[in-house]
């Protein structure tokens, strides 16, 4: 390992560590932060990285590769099926519509139809990395905009396969290659178009086959050693292996790992793989964005600034229009439609992959490719800004009003004792219950469609991200007594818990946990009132089951009370042991055994501790003896 490596690592890491937190603080999101960091260290500003930006790009593309592996892992068939109409309808129409609409001006500008079509397809892609990261950071993944964005991105990811297969057919230069493209020397470059297409499908089939037959036994074998780092190594090996295979046949490794992920989505190792790859992905993706920032060819842009900028603008506007039209067609509200359309309006990282592939296929010439690369990078760099503008300027004008704007500081009429953050299927029940008992509640909700609906029903619901301190303030957090936290995502809930602890320590915090592990997180964060959302309902079902089986209703209820108390105690105990995983498992097993004993004892000696007052047996004995 040479010195150059370290000095580069130093530059990249320092740029990330210095710039990204700053960007985040300014509300720009991490993606824009990385891009800016890249531009700063790039050849046109500080010049720390120059010609080798391209090489770095190759390393960084590996982040995209990993991300696609994770996206693949997320693709359980059931989820795909649930989202089928939005994936096929929304996603399909988006790719089709955008490709054609972008190809037509190309033809009008004098490009041949095959080149125009290739460019149209390439530019129809959006950036999974930017969109998922940005929406995730804003807690919008569960809103309708988030869900639909996910569907569209998914369709695009899937569409890569046919696009990669179709591109060679668009090349009029079949046969041997006149000029070697450095860096990308696949084994199949010398084959004719149809054979390359065949090879693409062959490699896909190979990944699926290996994924289904070989990988799972291997993972089982590795997991058997119980060495966590070895499993991480195996996970990386898997991704690197697929990447190597794909490179050797000149295919997109992103595509390969995506497939690999899909194949493993149903395996028992899914969560392990996910959590092992995640940190690598995050870091490499950051690197990727820095590299994109650094590789923006400002020289080219400065030569014809008007041309480049007008192209960037028209591409983004056109994509936004198509997306917004589709959003309305699929019945999204104004706000959500705008968030959706603007979020997806950039061209994505796949375009880089596809562009270099198209260049290899000599569909595009060198100048055009460089120009398009710069344009793509610019659209990506502009996205976080566009989202910010949309959020701060456009939506406040045309969309559902946000609480912060709605109530000026002097007329906060909300002096409600309770704030409910998240009015979904859990929060709404709590809210209705409190309302029925004459308690005033202030509701904060991030899904603007839901906000509008609830407002129509006459409820006081305010739109906004509850984790923002200003919003809490205008919702009257200072005067309130307690906050009910029932946001969709556990991460957001945790974030809100922290915010409340920091700024409003006087508030009682009641938080909904989706399962045991969430509950642990909240308990670790010092929350006293944690509710597992399915716990009570399951117990009540258990009570009814006992009753149907002939148990007395009062006894069944007592059994439930005992069980609940016991389980909560066990939960608290296990929460303190969670650090050591193996120990946790032991204890979990112990608890189950303890529970078994508990239940057995219950059956043998029906006079439970609790009911010892009713134990007449001892009394009778004394009586008989006298």
């Amino acid at each position: 390992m040479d010195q150059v490596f370290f000095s580069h690592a130093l530059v990249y890491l320092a740029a990330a560590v210095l710039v990204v937190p700053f960007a985040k603080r300014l509300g720009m999101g991490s993606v824009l932060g990385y891009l800016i960091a890249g531009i700063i260290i790039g050849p046109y500003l500080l010049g720390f990285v120059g010609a080798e930006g391209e090489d770095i790009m190759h390393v960084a593309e590996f982040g995209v590769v990993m991300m696609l592996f994770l996206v693949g892992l997320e693709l359980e068939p059931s989820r795909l099926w649930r989202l089928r109409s939005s994936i096929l309808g929304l996603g399909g129409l988006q790719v089709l519509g955008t490709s054609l609409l972008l190809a037509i001006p190309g033809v009008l500008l004098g490009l041949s139809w095959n080149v125009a079509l290739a460019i149209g397809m390439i530019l129809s892609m959006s950036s999974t990395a930017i969109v998922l990261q940005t929406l995730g950071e804003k807690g919008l993944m569960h809103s309708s905009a988030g869900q639909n964005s996910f569907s569209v991105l998914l369709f695009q990811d899937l569409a890569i396969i046919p696009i990669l297969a179709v591109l060679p057919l668009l090349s009029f230069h079949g046969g041997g290659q006149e000029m070697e493209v450095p860096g990308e020397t696949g084994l199949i470059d010398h084959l004719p178009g149809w054979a390359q297409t065949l090879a693409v499908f062959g490699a896909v089939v190979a990944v699926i086959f290996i994924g289904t037959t070989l990988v799972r036994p291997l993972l089982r074998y590795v997991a058997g050693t119980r060495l966590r780092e070895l499993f991480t190594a195996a996970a990386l090996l898997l991704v690197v292996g697929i990447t190597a295979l794909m490179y050797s046949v000149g295919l997109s490794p992103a595509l390969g790992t995506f497939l690999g992920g899909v194949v493993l989505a149903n395996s028992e190792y899914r969560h392990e793989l996910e959590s092992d790859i995640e940190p690598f992905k995050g870091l490499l993706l950051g690197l990727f964005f820095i590299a994109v920032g650094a590789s923006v060819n400002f020289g080219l842009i400065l030569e014809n600034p008007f041309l480049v900028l007008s192209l960037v603008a028209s591409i983004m506007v056109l994509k936004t229009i198509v997306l917004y039209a589709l959003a309305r067609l699929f019945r999204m509200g104004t706000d959500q439609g705008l968030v959706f359309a603007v979020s997806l309006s950039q061209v994505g990282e796949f375009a880089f992959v596809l562009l270099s592939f198209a260049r290899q296929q000599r569909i595009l010439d060198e100048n055009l490719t460089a120009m398009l690369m710069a344009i793509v990078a610019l659209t990506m760099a502009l996205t976080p800004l566009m989202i910010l503008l949309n959020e701060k300027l456009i939506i406040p004008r045309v969309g559902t009003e946000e609480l912060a704007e709605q109530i000026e500081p002097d007329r906060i009429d909300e002096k409600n004792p309770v704030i409910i953050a998240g009015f979904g299927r859990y929060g709404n029940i709590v809210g209705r219950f409190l309302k029925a008992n004459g308690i005033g509640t202030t509701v904060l909700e991030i899904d603007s469609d839901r906000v509008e609906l609830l407002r129509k029903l006459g409820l006081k619901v305010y739109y906004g991200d509850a984790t923002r301190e200003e919003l809490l303030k205008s919702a009257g957090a200072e005067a309130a007594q307690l906050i009910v936290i029932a946001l969709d995502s556990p991460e957001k809930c945790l974030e809100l818990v922290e915010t409340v602890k920091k700024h409003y320590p006087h508030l009682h915090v009641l938080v909904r946990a989706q399962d045991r592990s969430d509950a642990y997180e909240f308990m670790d964060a010092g929350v006293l009132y944690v509710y597992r959302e399915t716990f009570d309902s399951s117990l009540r079902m258990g009570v009814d089951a006992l009753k149907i089986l002939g148990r007395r209703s009062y006894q069944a209820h007592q059994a439930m009370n005992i069980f609940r108390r016991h389980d909560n105690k066990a939960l608290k105990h296990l929460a303190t042991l969670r650090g050591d995983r193996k120990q946790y498992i032991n204890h979990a097993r112990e608890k189950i055994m303890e529970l078994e004993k508990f239940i057995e004892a219950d059956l043998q000696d029906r006079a439970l501790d609790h009911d010892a007052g009713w134990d007449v047996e001892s009394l009778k004995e004394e009586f008989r003896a006298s």
Partner: protein
Amino acid sequence: MAKVLILFAHPRYENSLVQQHLSTVAQKVSGVTFHDLYEFYPDFDVQIKYEQDLLIGHDIIILQHPFYWYSCPPLLKQWIDLVLEHGWAYGRAGKALAGKIMMNAVSTGGSQAAYQPDGFNRFTIGQFLAPFDQTARLCNMAYYPPFVVHGTHRAATRDIENAGESYRLLLEGIVAGKFSDEAIRNVTYLNELIN
């Protein structure tokens, strides 16, 4: 034909010997409505309107329960507290129960001898049941002497069966209106009407 409502309260029915048998017997007597409170309200959430309607539909209300701490189990007390509302059961406008009859049917661990002024428990069952007596009075109802099964701690199967038989005959007699007010007023325990 009098309509009889038995309000039954036993938190540990599974372990019960005497009361379980009495209940089985009572449920077979026609003209008797058997209402198992612990089965209905395991969480003590007594439905007032439902209970009041039930009372209105009957003439004689029997509170059947084991003797716990010289009184009734807690749910029955809860029932009394909630259902016998002011303005409905008592008070100037509270005449809903006027003319009805109330009584207790209890089992005790202690023997009859223990429930004497000079016995272990110092007071008679009748004295211990004074709150029920007065409750009935306040609600414009007549109060009958109790049906009592004593000495359950030592009861043999035969004793329990005999008690059950007496209870059956008593209930049937009450439904048929067999016992005169006169006869009833002259006994300490209704058990004496049988035999």
